[in-house]
C-alpha cells in the first residue's frame, strides 16, 4: 500500500518505521526543517518538507494515488484538515487522524474522519488489521513513568478465559485493576477471578507488562514497536 504520514514527530517516526518493515511504501510530510534532517538520516524513506494540510504538498506527495493518509501531528485541528483535504480533494479511501485531545473524538467522527486513534499501536492495528479494532485501547499514559492505563476487551477465543487470574502468569508490572462485565456489577479482581468473553479489563502496566498482557489475553506475540 502507499501510505502518506503527515507529521514526523515521535508517533510519525515509529509509525513510518513499522510500516516500512511491513513492506509498505511510505512518505512522510514534515514542516520543521530540523526534524526533516533527523528523519532523513535515521529513516531512509521519502520525506517531504512542507505543510501537510496544504493542497500543494499533498499533490507533490502523490495523495491521489495514496491508499491511506494518516495525520499524526500534535495539533488536532491540523490532523482534521489534513484528513478532510485528503478525502474531499484527493479521494483517499482511508483517512486516519491522531487525537491529541480525546474530547475531539465525537467531532472528528461527525466530520467524516474514518478512524481516530490516540496511539501508534492502534494506528498500526487499523492498517494491518492483524488485531481487530479497539480490543486494546490506551486510555492514558502517565508522564515520565512509562506506565500506561489500558482497556482490553476479552475476545471469545482468549486463552485466559475460564482460569483464575493467579494461574495466568501475570507479571508484577501489569496490574488488573477492574473487570467490567456487561449487565453485572464491576469486579475488583482477585487471584480467584475468572475472565469471561466480552469482559473489559482495566489494567495498569509498563511497556513490558503490556506485552505480557497481550500475550495472556490474546494468546499471541505482538511485535514491540
Amino acid at each position: 500500500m502507499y501510505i502518506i504520514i503527515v507529521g514526523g514527530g515521535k508517533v510519525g517516526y515509529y509509525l513510518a518505521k513499522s510500516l516500512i518493515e511491513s513492506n509498505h511504501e511510505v512518505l512522510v510530510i514534515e514542516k520543521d526543517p530540523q526534524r526533516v534532517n533527523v528523519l532523513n538520516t535515521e529513516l531512509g524513506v521519502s520525506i517531504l518538507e512542507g505543510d501537510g494540510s496544504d493542497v500543494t504538498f499533498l499533490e507533490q506527495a502523490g495523495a491521489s494515488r495514496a491508499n491511506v493518509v494518516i495525520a499524526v501531528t500534535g495539533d488536532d485541528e491540523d490532523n482534521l484538515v489534513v484528513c478532510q483535504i485528503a478525502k474531499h480533494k484527493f479521494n483517499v479511501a482511508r483517512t486516519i487522524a491522531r487525537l491529541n485531545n480525546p474530547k475531539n473524538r465525537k467531532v472528528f467522527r461527525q466530520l467524516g474522519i474514518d478512524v481516530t486513534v490516540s496511539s501508534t499501536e492502534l494506528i498500526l492495528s487499523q492498517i494491518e488489521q492483524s488485531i481487530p479494532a479497539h480490543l486494546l485501547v490506551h486510555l492514558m499514559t502517565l508522564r515520565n513513568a512509562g506506565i500506561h492505563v489500558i482497556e482490553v476487551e476479552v475476545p471469545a477465543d482468549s486463552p485466559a478465559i475460564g482460569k483464575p487470574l493467579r494461574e495466568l502468569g501475570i507479571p508484577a508490572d501489569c496490574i488488573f485493576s477492574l473487570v467490567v462485565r456487561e449487565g453485572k456489577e464491576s469486579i475488583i479482581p482477585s487471584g480467584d477471578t475468572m475472565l469471561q468473553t466480552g469482559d473489559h479489563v482495566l489494567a495498569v502496566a509498563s511497556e513490558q507488562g503490556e506485552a505480557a498482557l497481550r500475550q495472556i489475553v490474546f494468546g499471541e506475540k505482538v511485535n514491540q514497536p
Partner: protein
Amino acid sequence: MNIVILGCGRTGSYLAKKMVMEGHQVSVVDSNRTSFALLGPDFAGELILGTGIDEDVLIRAGIENADAFVAVTNHENTNLMAAQVAKYTFQVPRAICRVEDPARQEIYRNLGLEIICHTIWEVAKVDEILAQDK
C-alpha cells in the same frame, strides 16, 4: 444578534468593537490573554480565555445561543475546525471562517462553510489597481 468571535487579533478585535457599536451581544475568545488589550479598556462585550476548538470554551462563550460564529485566528486550520464545530455540533445559523489558502476556501466552501479568503481579495484588488494603468 448574539455573536461569538474566535481570535482577538487585528480582525477579531476590530470586528468585535464594530459589532458592539452596532448594538450586538458579542463574546470574544482567545487563548492569549494579552490579545484582549486590542479591544481597549471600554469594550462592552464578554472576554473568554481558552482554545476555540474546545467545546467547553465555546459553551462558556455562549455558542449554544449564538446567531453567528466568526473564526478569525491566525491559524487557518483552527478556524476551519472551530467553524465546523459551531455549524455541525452547535447548529449556529451562520458560521463564518477565515482562511489564507485559496485551495482550502474552495474545498470547504464545497463542504458548506462560509469562507473568507483574504488572499483572493488582496490579489484581486492589486490586479484591479494595476489594470487602471493600462
